[in-house]
């Protein structure tokens, strides 16, 4: 039984149309807060690549120019950060992970996304295929800001936003689930906002 906080009341009813779009424990924001564990990396685009690896060996790699030549999609999605803000109708442009993973033969069940700055995060393959994930390089019609993960970040909007790894440089194919950066520090291995899977054990 939760104690009642007398005098505490709901203040933010949210905009019309938001009903049913806010996962439990989240609140709406119009801003775009930033969360990361260290300094923002700045990799020159002429040195940037996106790679798919297995056992540390590169199976396929795209330069920045090659990635930009791939078919791109513009998608509008709601995003949900584990620190409790949610933002509705965010617009992104990027390359579907289906396109990228389709370039290699694979039967693994998981990927570990790796990034500039040493950040990693783990995802089931089933959650980054079938039109559910992108390598995004534009936000709201503009090139993605470095502080928001530019030049490119993973976009996996149906999971908490730490899974949408900033400064992504590729994925490692894994036959088992392996915790990434925040997952090692007690955050949930899967991170479904609708089941409020914030921390290990939720």
């Amino acid at each position: 039984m939760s104690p009642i906080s007398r005098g505490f009341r709901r203040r933010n009813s949210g905009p019309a149309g938001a009903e049913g779009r806010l996962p439990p424990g989240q609140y709406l924001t119009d801003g775009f807060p930033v969360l990361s564990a260290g300094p923002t990396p700045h990799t020159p685009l002429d040195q940037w690549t996106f790679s798919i690896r297995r056992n540390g060996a590169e199976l396929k790699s795209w330069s920045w120019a090659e990635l930009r030549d791939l078919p791109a999609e513009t998608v509008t999605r709601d995003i949900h950060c584990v620190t409790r803000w949610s933002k509705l109708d965010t617009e992104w442009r990027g390359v579907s992970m289906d396109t990228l993973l389709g370039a290699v033969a694979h039967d693994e069940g998981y990927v570990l996304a790796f990034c500039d700055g040493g950040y990693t995060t783990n995802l089931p393959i089933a959650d980054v295929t079938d039109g559910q994930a992108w390598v995004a390089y534009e936000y709201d019609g503009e090139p993605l800001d470095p502080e928001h993960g530019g030049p490119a970040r993973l976009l996996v909007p149906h999971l908490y936003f730490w899974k949408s790894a900033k400064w992504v440089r590729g994925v490692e194919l894994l036959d088992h689930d392996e915790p990434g950066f925040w997952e090692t520090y007690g955050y949930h291995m899967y991170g479904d906002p609708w089941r409020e899977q914030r921390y290990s054990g939720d």
Partner: protein
Amino acid sequence: MEGTAVQRRLTWLVATVTGIVDETPSVRTIQLDVPGWPGHRAGQHLDVRLTAEDGYVAERSYSIASAPGELVAITVERLEDGEVSPYLTEELRVGDQLELRGPVGGYFVWEATDARPLLLVAGGSGVVPLRAIVRERERRGSDAPVRLLYSSRTLTDVIYRDELDAYGDGIAVSYTLTRAQPPGWTGYAGRVNSALLAEVAWPAHDNPLAFVCGPTTFVETVAEALVGLRYPPGQVKTERFGASGR
């Protein structure tokens, strides 16, 4: 960036307010008795859950202001358009109960066994987890030398000022006031930038460990400047407050 796996379930605990300290006109520290609290490390945060009379529930994260081994305390800044912070800073009384769970986060933490020089850079209420680090250093008798650079709008907005000014050997506190400085102010004025950090921060060759906490643009500026001063990115730990935290 290796960490220790935390594989226990975080359950909601009922906490009782045992003390309230007004730090500034818009910031207060709330001391809590939390039976079952598993303990925390300096720099971690926790989640607060409030339940209204009509059953409405709101959750927010706050940095822990106290050192490991002390009573759990959070320091909360009132955000005018906020929902939870006005309640915590204006309505909450000693003896009231609320729910919390934690600790959360294992990267932005400092261990007293780490002897490296510490650079702590705070913007506004970003000083809260850094204060926990300083208190832990005092409690544990660490010899790690500390330089704390704390940016506030005005002197009135400085949180924990008496405590910070009372620290002695080994902890050098520098203030910079960005909006207004009182007559005779001998601290710094203006926003933290590369030149100020070059003056105040440990040189990179001292192998320092940096903790930076504050609003997004502040943290971006400071972290970028420290990398420019040749701090290895892995030795610059950041915690950012979003533009819209409520």
